[in-house]
């Protein structure tokens, strides 16, 4: 992979995108799993309570006094009630069945809802923003060019993909992008026919706008 593509690949990863490539093509494929309804990113590594869907807060809950503590604390003693009691990786929703006294014991014995041993959490099932349960992949194939190379595409771009020009300007790098079907690869390209992004984050947002 040439360094232009590699640079954009790392930028894509830092913007929560997955990156794919094919050694025989001069292109990059960027993809993300998003909510079908609102487009919010979907994170399969994020866990939620199996019983009430509340997200993992990454906190310990003291079953004696209810105080919350960071999971980085190694102390077995509760900082509030000073008792050496069982701190659990519990659900933070007080209404959750896992927090009802008559039922919590069995889950707490396994370390709490978010302890892997309990088997009481699932990968994200609801959108973080709108609560939808549907997710789909959104994928863009992009070709990167430098206008200093003459402005012509020089390679055949298959339709439905994106062309990105990286241009060094006084204020930094700007990006110009367009769907390949809007461009004629045989002519010199005019950047003013393309959309402009002032930074790489805006570039990726622009590429994933709409369908």
């Amino acid at each position, binding site marked *: 992979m040439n360094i232009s593509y590699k640079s954009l690949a790392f930028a894509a990863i830092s913007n929560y995108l997955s990156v794919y490539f094919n050694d025989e093509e001069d292109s990059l494929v960027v993809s993300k799993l998003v909510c079908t309804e609102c487009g919010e990113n979907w994170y399969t590594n994020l866990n939620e309570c199996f019983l*009430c869907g509340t*997200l993992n807060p990454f906190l310990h809950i003291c079953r004696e006094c209810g105080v919350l503590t960071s999971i980085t604390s190694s102390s077995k003693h509760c900082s509030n009630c000073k008792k050496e009691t069982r701190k659990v990786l519990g659900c933070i929703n007080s209404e959750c069945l896992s927090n009802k006294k008559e039922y919590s014991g*069995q889950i707490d014995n396994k370390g709490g809802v978010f302890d892997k041993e309990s088997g009481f959490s*699932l*990968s994200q099932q609801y959108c973080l923003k709108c609560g939808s349960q549907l997710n789909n992949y959104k994928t863009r194939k992009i070709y990167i060019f430098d206008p200093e190379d003459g402005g012509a595409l020089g390679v055949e771009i298959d339709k439905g993909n994106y062309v990105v020009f990286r241009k060094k300007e006084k204020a930094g790098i700007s990006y110009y992008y367009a769907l390949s079907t809007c461009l004629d690869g045989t002519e010199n390209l005019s950047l003013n026919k393309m959309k402009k992004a002032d930074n790489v984050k805006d570039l990726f947002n622009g590429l994933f706008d709409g369908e």
Partner: protein
Amino acid sequence: MKFPINPFPDVKPEEFNKLNKKRVTEDFVAENFIKLGWRVYEPFNDTGIDRIIMKNVCPNGHTPTEEDGKDLCKTCGTKTMRIERYLQVKTRTLKDNIFGFTLKSKDLRTDPRHFFILYSDSTMDFFIVGILDFLSFFIKNKINPFSSTSFRKGNNKLNSLKRNTAGDWFWNNKDFNSFLNENGLKLLQNEQIDINLNKKTEQTREYLNILLNVFTCGNSYTKEFGEIINKELIAKPNKISFTRGRMETVIDKIKENNVTNNKEALIESTKKYWEGVKQSENSGEEEVF
């Protein structure tokens, strides 16, 4: 058409062991799809998807499985459409004629373009199973591999896919040959998945909810406890209610906790972990938290 073939004639697939087979088997899968006209993309980092594949096909289903449809259909002249598939490859060597593998809840997405490639290297067999067909198979045959505690713990090994001496495959004695090799290829290339993407996404979720909202107690919990949990799951099929975003709701819960003093520090800690999880999704690190 013979499918799959061994694209690497200098080495037999089974010569690699489970510690060093990932690269060769994923390339084995990739080369087989390239020969059938698919454009194959490999991950820059190790993510949940092992390959993305793309192909142009006739929207009327005329494109043979061994060809790329180019711009126009050779049969009806219709403009072709690009289809994309998201592949998770699981390669195993049979033990006692069993193909054993693990599925986690993070492997289950609602996009019907998500496919599992179950590759039995010792018999050179591919199962090509779309998520929707997979779930449909389980529901139709009253099988639920996702209700157990071990599934939610992430260590539920599925040992139900078996090959008999005649070379036929079964899942819990139910015929599984419809996903095998050429049969699976036809399912993979089914353009109706893309044409009806929204409807099939909703159908996938419907099936997922049926299978995920069941609790089997196993040895970890008492039977009585299991009954209470299942009652709760039936009573509240839609688990969450929305007044604010889900992360904001957790932050609110921390703020509402009356016995905790250093709430701002805890909120920052929680946000830091969430950010780590988000970054781990595409950085190639597997479930770091």
